[in-house]
């Protein structure tokens, strides 16, 4: 277009293409939940997502401090790091300095995340966590923000499991379940109260449409020959004040219908109806002889819609259903395990769920019973979680660099505060060993030799505990239960 390619002076063109002017303004910081309202916090902790642009420069320019800004950045602080990554908070502050800090935290985390080949999926409700059907956030029926007819067509497909309008991830109104009382009061007084007359008009239109439908159906019942198009529709202007008052009174007794109307008018994000709509105790809130459209919850109803696109721009992969190939062992059933850090063990000063740090993202242990779960402490079998994952229950100071565990990540999704939630799976010992061998932490051959040369333990089941112990070996295939000594003798 001609208007955008307007001729500018050389000086202006230079300025426009310069780094100084091409810096985008920072996005809003992560909603700090309540962290700002607490007494224990850190200003310098890594934020949940980056808000500023990361700037880099060629190494030759870095050596002279040239990052493309008004003044060179100090060499002492910018030349030590391996990668030149800087975030500039203010190009020119009032003290005549460039306010910058290292941006390697977010940038390297992004790089590590990309290495995981993770795909983002629509959140799965808790009751389906055991065997979830993962749907990519980029699917046509999910990745839309406005209720346009073309979008609805995709959403209304055979696998549609809810109100197609509620499957989108962006809403104009807030998510009520995630607001504090103060925020809710402010929202009502600032945004909602001023729209009362507009809402009355909205109700008039609804009532007019309802009346038209009622009249049409009654006429159709009486006389089949009259075409419905011949009858003029009831207009909103024809609705009298008395009619509207009567309708409003009826709505007050019908909470379900009222919430539907209000949430449609304000375009509220869906809230979970698991407790209200289908619970037997709430049946009193439904009008008798009336048809209700009860949908399953929107995927974002339980924890709120994300503040960004549900992929957060971190990954554009649609699925993880691809096979990795190993140079020796061939195609692998599972993806390579990821070495993760046990950031918080189970029993610290305060007991809590252990937290696993996967490539810079904190993740919970799987919600279902896995090898991460807390087993009985006096479990005599060799596979209690304490032995299986050292450092998971208690902090292990003897581990240089902290305790690590190899994990399998199933999927990722973005929550209402823009944080990335990784869903971990149970560990797969075979995959772990393959990965350990690949990175040189494990020698499979030496391990096999050691295992074969060990004497077979005597078979004895303690009288008190007669149970099936699958991981205990009382003999092995090569020695046919004869023990290691016999192998050496023959």
């Amino acid at each position, binding site marked *: 277009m001609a208007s955008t390619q307007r001729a500018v002076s050389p000086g202006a063109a230079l300025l426009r293409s310069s780094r100084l002017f091409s810096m985008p303004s920072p996005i809003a910081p992560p909603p700090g939940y*309540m962290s*700002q*309202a*607490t*007494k*224990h*916090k*850190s*200003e*310098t*902790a*890594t*934020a*949940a*997502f980056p808000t500023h642009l990361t700037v880099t420069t060629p190494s030759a320019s870095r050596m002279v401090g040239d990052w493309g800004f008004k003044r060179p950045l100090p060499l002492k602080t910018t030349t030590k790091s391996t990668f030149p990554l800087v975030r500039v908070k203010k190009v020119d502050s009032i003290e005549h300095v460039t306010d910058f800090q290292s941006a*390697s*935290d*977010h940038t*390297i*985390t992004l790089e590590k995340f990309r290495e995981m080949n993770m795909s983002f999926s629509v959140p799965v409700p808790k009751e389906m966590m055991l065997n979830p059907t993962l749907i990519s956030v980029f699917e046509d029926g999910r990745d839309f923000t406005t209720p346009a007819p073309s979008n609805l067509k995709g959403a209304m497909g055979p696998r549609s499991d809810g109100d197609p309008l509620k499957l989108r991830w962006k809403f104009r109104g807030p998510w009520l379940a995630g607001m*504090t*009382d*103060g*925020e*809710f*009061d402010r929202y009502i007084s600032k945004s909602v109260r001023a729209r009362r007359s507009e809402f009355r008009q909205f109700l008039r239109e609804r009532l007019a449409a309802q009346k038209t439908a009622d009249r049409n159906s009654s006429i159709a019942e009486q006389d089949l020959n009259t075409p419905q198009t011949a009858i003029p529709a009831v207009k909103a202007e024809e609705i009298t004040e008395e009619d509207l008052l009567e309708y409003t009174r009826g709505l007050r007794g019908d909470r379900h219908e009222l919430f539907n109307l209000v949430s449609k008018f304000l375009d509220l994000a869906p809230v979970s109806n698991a407790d209200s709509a289908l619970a037997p105790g709430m049946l009193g809130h439904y009008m008798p002889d009336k048809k209700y459209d009860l949908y399953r919850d929107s995927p974002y109803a339980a924890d709120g819609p994300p503040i960004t696109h549900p992929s957060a721009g971190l990954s554009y992969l649609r699925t993880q259903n691809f096979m990795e190939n190993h140079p020796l062992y061939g195609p692998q059933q599972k993806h390579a395990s990821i070495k993760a850090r046990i*950031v*918080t*063990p189970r*029993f*610290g*000063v*305060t007991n*809590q769920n252990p*937290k696993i*740090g996967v490539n*810079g*993202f*904190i*993740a*919970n242990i799987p919600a279902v019973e896995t090898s991460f779960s807390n087993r009985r402490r006096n479990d005599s079998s060799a596979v209690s979680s304490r032995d299986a994952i050292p450092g998971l229950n*208690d*902090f*292990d*100071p003897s581990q240089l660099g*902290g305790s690590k565990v190899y994990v399998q990540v199933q999927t990722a999704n973005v*929550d209402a*505060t823009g*944080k*990335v*939630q990784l869903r971990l799976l149970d560990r797969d010992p075979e995959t772990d060993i393959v990965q350990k061998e690949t990175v040189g932490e494990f020698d499979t051959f030496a391990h096999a030799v050691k295992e074969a040369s060990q004497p077979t333990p005597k078979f004895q089941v*303690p009288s008190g505990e007669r149970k099936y112990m699958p991981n205990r070996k009382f003999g092995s295939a090569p020695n046919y239960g004869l023990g290691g000594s016999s192998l050496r003798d023959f």
Partner: protein
Amino acid sequence: MPPRIPFLSAFKQPATSSFFRSQACQFSQQAPLQASTSHSRSAAMSPPPPASSMLNLDSSSKRGGQDATEGVSSIFDDFRSKRRTQTPDGERKVVGELRGKNISEDYMRQMPRRWREGDLYAPHDLSEVEAAKWRKMTSVQRDLVDLLGLRPLDMYANFSVVSEYMTPHGRIRKRMQTGLTPKNQRKIAKMVRRSVALGIHPSVHRHPELLMRSGHMTPQQTQAVGKFGNFI
């Protein structure tokens, strides 16, 4: 329940003396070690014929009774050692575990940050500099009255709230500590004064009912630790 004694050993030695001996062993550190050495010795010896020991029940201590006693006590020790495994130093396994737990807890006290799912961390976040920041008490940055939509003047009877905005000496907390806006700070101050004036809240210290429960409310991280830690 006394240990089950096999048939042969029962005739070797009066059961009472061996039982008391092994009971005494339970509380001494050295005795099990001796018993385990004597066990191998007694296993090598052949048992005396049962009929002869039946005849010499009262004088059994003279003729080979020592070995038989040790034999019985070793059976009891065998039975017992399955539950209490020992390290070569003679220390019980449980003791070592508890000591390790104390050490872990001491380390965990140095890492006060409560991580939430989805938090990001870089190497810097695991450093001691950052840990010190999370341990320090800072002022609240957000106005809790606005955030929670409270009406302070209606809450003068709620001594938990009143106590939150008072120092232990009964003074009203200042704005630096409460993090309130001037408007809400005035309301909160009025709430405290009203509560004290009505005699609902003491003017010199915290409310006694809160003091009564303060043991449960003290965060574990700031609780005193005994000389040997919490676990041993």
